[in-house]
């Protein structure tokens, strides 16, 4: 049962299993619903709720909607969600945060379940809080729209964000000026809004459903009922900037008997949609002028991703501002109020939340320990020491571990979320889908050394596939091939699957997403290689395949560590430091060839025919992509780097024989090194806990490494990510703390240094080390396959 395009049967089920309206299943019955928020408007009731459970420690935010006419169904849904909460200890009643007009009107219905507590939240406060949250936390949330340029995503959260204006279009229109978090005022509005359009269209066309009315507008021709400038003037009225095709009077053609045009309901529908949208756009613009505001967001369920509505609002803002301003739209437009209400917390609830976080942090540390008993002791020790050091560096008072943790809990009040599209509720053709928002275990922050300005904003993706249909098709096909490749690996027994069913489920789910993306490239925001790879990991994790490469990684790491001592001996035998470092750089790239994500190399890896020596020979060094000598010069002649931040890539030979010896060199030359690895598994990338174990085992066979670990000069930290690519705006805050004082950033691997961050600039020195292992990526950069990328760039300063 779809309406408004939103799957009302509980959006979460779409893609795996569709349930009946009254039979809503949670994806995992063990998941717990903590809290539900609802925004009951004139036509729709929007529900936002968070689940948590063994698989989603941090919590997962879901979005769904019901027609207000079926509000009983909506309330039943919410009460059912909170049913599962019985096991929760303590006596606290489950809470529904309610906002919107219906929160008052249906108060009795909401309260019909006595064990549920209802808290009514102010509508405008909820709207703005929701908007602030969404533009801060959700990637590709904000976009502009025009018929010829649909959905161009806008970088939000820039420094000129406030003040902005929110035009919320429901039955009527409210215009708010938002000056900051929690600071807003209603500056104007109009009652000529969605309700007006609905009422007029209902009476004029007999149609009841708003969506059916909007559907009619697609085929209508408004010039049959409107009086156009050309109808009056015969041509353009150039002097006042009116074109013959501009509307002189909406519905005015009906009045003029001389026009005598044949028209039908669809023509009227389109005319009235234009009329209402144009008028709202104009009033919004006038308000922006009066208040000196440059950013205008349009929200509310009137828009519901309807292309013509967005186009008209955009046109109006563009027309009246003479092209100086654009209308801004939001993917979660209908959910601002419910989202804002959800995050509204009472003081005592906040305290409880903090406790919850503390517990969660403990659990995840425990998990890490269980996952890797070898590295556990060191993990704690390293973490402890480095945090102390950093605290000391930052001239903060030292308090050790406990203090650090407390700080985390406090800072995490503003959580970070990642949108997860693995199970996506669709809304409409134009706007695409809404995913679930997974709360990250830590707060995610931008790398301080990232150079980003208004003129040259940081953009992680090297190629925006959205604007390149051919590349789009190539990468979608590549992902399909790669997925089928996984089936072959599985057939060979190389993968850890815990049963065949999950892999089949994953393949069906991911291929389904790829099909959807082929039809609608913008369905999940801007399309990039990063997004496609990230979506694959999300789908794997969603069906319970947490780490399919675990055994491959273990095997390769064991083999690589066995080869480490002779390699180190060989390196140490080279007398010139410069030659030593040069070899180490070559080894980093050779090691990077051991990549199960590369379809081209998978065959050689599977039959064991690749070794470091052979890999090194395959790589071509060209001056245009490799300036190793400049880096060697810098190390030779400059002062030693104080701290290097190294983003690592694959497990096995890559990290053990490439990165680790390179890090050992830096450490030996007075640099403290932070090795940043994915927090959770992706492909055969090494994870934080695996890397801790590797360093621990390396320390057993190498005195230099052991000493550096002991002194806290070699540290492992999670990035906060579980993707093969890297968004440097979203790093675990612990890593960001550790990165203070870093004067060298090293990024290893194709995913992190070519597909993403290829153009990233830094205030400190940077070194990007990778091999072009994919033909298309090589072509895009003007390189050849297996060319070396060894790009050293001195810092741009701050």
């Amino acid at each position, binding site marked *: 049962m779809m309406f408004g395009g939103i799957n009302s049967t509980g959006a979460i089920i779409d893609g795996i299993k569709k349930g009946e309206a009254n039979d809503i299943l949670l994806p995992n019955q063990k998941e717990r619903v903590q809290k539900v928020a609802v925004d009951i408007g*004139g036509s729709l009731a929007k529900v936002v709720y968070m689940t948590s459970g063994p698989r989603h420690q941090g919590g997962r935010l879901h979005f769904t909607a019901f027609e207000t006419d079926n509000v009983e169904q909506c309330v039943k849904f919410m009460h059912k969600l909170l049913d599962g909460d019985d096991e929760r200890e303590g006596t606290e009643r489950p809470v529904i945060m309610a906002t919107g*007009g*219906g929160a*008052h*009107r249906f*108060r009795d219905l909401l309260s019909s379940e006595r064990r549920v507590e209802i808290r009514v939240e102010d509508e405008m406060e909820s709207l703005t809080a929701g908007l602030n949250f969404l533009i801060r936390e959700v990637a590709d949330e904000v976009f502009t729209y025009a018929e010829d340029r649909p959905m161009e995503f806008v970088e939000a959260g820039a420094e000129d964000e406030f003040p902005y204006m929110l035009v919320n279009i*429901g*039955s*009527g229109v409210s215009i708010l000026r938002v000056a900051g978090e929690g600071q807003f005022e209603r500056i104007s509005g*109009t*009652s*000529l*809004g*969605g*309700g*007006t359009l*609905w*009422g*007029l269209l*209902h*009476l*004029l066309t007999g149609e*009841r459903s708003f969506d059916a009315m909007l559907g009619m507008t697609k085929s209508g021709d408004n010039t049959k*009922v*409107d*009086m156009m400038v050309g*109808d*009056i*003037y*015969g041509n353009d009225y150039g*002097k*006042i*900037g009116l074109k013959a095709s*501009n*509307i*002189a*009077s*909406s*519905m*005015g*053609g*009906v*009045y*003029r*008997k*001389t026009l005598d045009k044949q028209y039908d309901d669809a023509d*009227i529908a389109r005319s009235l949609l*234009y*009329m209402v949208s*144009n*008028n709202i756009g*104009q*009033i919004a613009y*006038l*308000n922006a*002028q*009066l208040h000196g505001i440059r950013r205008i967001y349009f929200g509310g369920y009137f828009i519901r991703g309807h292309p013509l509505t967005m186009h008209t609002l955009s046109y109006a803002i563009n027309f*009246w501002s003479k092209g100086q301003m654009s209308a801004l739209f939001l993917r979660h437009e209908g959910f601002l109020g419910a989202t804002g209400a959800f995050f509204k917390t009472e003081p005592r609830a906040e305290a409880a939340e903090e406790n919850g976080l503390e517990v969660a942090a403990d659990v995840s540390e425990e998990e890490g320990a269980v996952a890797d008993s070898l590295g556990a002791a060191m993990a704690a020790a390293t973490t402890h020491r480095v945090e102390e050091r950093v605290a000391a560096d930052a001239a903060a008072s030292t308090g050790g571990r406990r203090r650090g943790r407390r700080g985390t809990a406090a800072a995490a009040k503003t959580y970070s979320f990642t949108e997860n599209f693995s199970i996506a509720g669709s809304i409409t053709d134009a706007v695409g889908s809404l995913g679930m928002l997974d709360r990250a275990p830590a707060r995610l922050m931008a790398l301080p050394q990232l150079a980003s300005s208004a003129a040259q904003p940081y953009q992680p993706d090297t190629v925006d596939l959205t604007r390149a249909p051919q590349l789009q098709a190539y990468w979608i096909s590549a992902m399909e091939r790669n997925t089928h490749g996984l089936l072959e690996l599985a057939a060979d027994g190389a993968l850890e699957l815990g049963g065949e069913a999950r892999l089949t489920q994953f393949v069906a789910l991911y291929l389904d997403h790829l099909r959807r993306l082929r039809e609608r490239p913008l369905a999940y925001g801007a399309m990039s290689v990063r997004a496609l790879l990230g979506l694959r990991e999300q789908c794997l994790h969603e069906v319970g395949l947490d780490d399919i490469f675990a055994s491959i990684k273990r095997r390769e790491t064991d083999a690589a560590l066995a080869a480490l001592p002779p390699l180190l001996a060989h390196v140490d035998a080279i007398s010139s430091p410069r030659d030593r470092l040069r070899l180490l750089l070559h080894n980093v790239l050779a090691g990077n060839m051991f990549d199960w994500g590369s379809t081209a190399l998978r065959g050689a890896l599977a039959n064991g025919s690749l070794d470091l020596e052979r890999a090194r020979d395959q790589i071509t060094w060209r001056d245009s992509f490799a300036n190793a000598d400049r880096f060697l010069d810098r190390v030779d002649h400059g002062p030693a780097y104080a701290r290097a931040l190294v983003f690592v890539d694959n497990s096995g030979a890559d990290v053990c024989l490439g990165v680790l010896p390179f890090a050992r060199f830096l450490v030996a030359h007075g640099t403290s090194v932070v090795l940043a690895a994915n927090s959770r598994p992706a492909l055969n990338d090494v994870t934080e806990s695996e890397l801790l174990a590797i360093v621990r085992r390396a320390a057993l066979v190498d005195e230099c490494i052991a000493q550096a670990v002991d002194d806290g000069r070699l540290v492992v930290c999670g990035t906060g990510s579980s993707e093969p690519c890297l968004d440097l705006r979203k790093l675990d805050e612990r890593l960001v703390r550790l990165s203070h004082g870093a004067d060298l950033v090293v990024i290893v691997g194709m995913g992190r240094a070519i597909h993403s961050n290829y153009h990233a600039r830094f205030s400190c020195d940077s070194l990007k080390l990778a091999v072009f292992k994919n033909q298309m990526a090589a072509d895009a950069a003007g390189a050849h396959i297996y060319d070396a990328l060894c790009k050293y760039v001195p810092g741009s300063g701050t």
Partner: protein
Amino acid sequence: MTPLKANSLSTQLALGIDIGGSLVKVVLEEGDGSSDSAQHPLLSFVHNIASQNDGEIPDGWKCSVARIPEGSSDANSTTLRALVLPTADISLLIDKVKNNWRTGARTIRIAATGGGALNHKATLERGLCVELVVAKELDAVAAGLAADIGASSEEQMLVCNVGTGVSLVSVDSQGNVERVSGSGIGGATFWGLTKRLTNFKSFDQAVVAAKKDGVLGKADTLVEDIYGRETSKEIGLAPDLVAGFLGKLDADNLTDADVSAALLRMFVSNLGQLAVFQARLSKVDAVWFTGGFVQSAEDTGEESECSAPAIVRQAITEAVSFWSAGSIAAQFPRNAALLGAIGAIHATSATLSE
């Protein structure tokens, strides 16, 4: 931008014609004592029919006589004879003038404006033995307003011309005319919707019935419909405040008058809001409303408080007061509907005399 000269009585032209989408407005300006209107059959026709000397006025045609500027003494004023007819009757006008044709009539120049001025130029010039000097519509309205109210050219004015559509025109202290804003939600929108949704036969009938019999709020979504009556009061919102115009157009018990009343309030409220915002941006404290919507074309003289234009003017006054919290005034010139035709004479005369 055409400079305005409000009192340019050194006029060569005596007749102005404003050809709108629906109606044609013709005015004849006669300086005191001068009655040379007999020189051309068009002028004499307008003089006679407007003075109602002719006896026979076709259906749908309206005539009147007035003096401008408003409130000035007879010595300083001009007599205005006006004729208004449906745009569809232009050929009938030509036929009637031709009936009075005398041989040897010279071609004269007349001033024209309005959307249809260029469309009908050839027909009129051939049929009436005239030459049309066309003034831009907004220049004409602005000049007409200045002539009608006798404004000094030093004043900055904001004019909201409400006809088929809406134009907001700023006239600065140098007399420069600029269309600063406008809207496609105009008089014809109101009437087009009203005609579609009710059985009213005329605009006037719809407006008068709206005022007399319409119950406001029956067709609108009110605050109480969203929050409930009691809660509205609790949260400090008036229950009968309109949240969404026309949101209850599906109600069963609506009369035509209720619908008309709701449509009128929607249109006028929107108009008032646009005018107030523009007034604030233009930094003026009054808005002059002109055009066919605020004054019926035929109604240039005294009219009752229950006439459609008076009802509309009252509604606009209230809307402007509401949106500006009383800080901006809505003002109405007496000959609102004729300003285009009057102004055409002044605007073109000013151009010609340069």
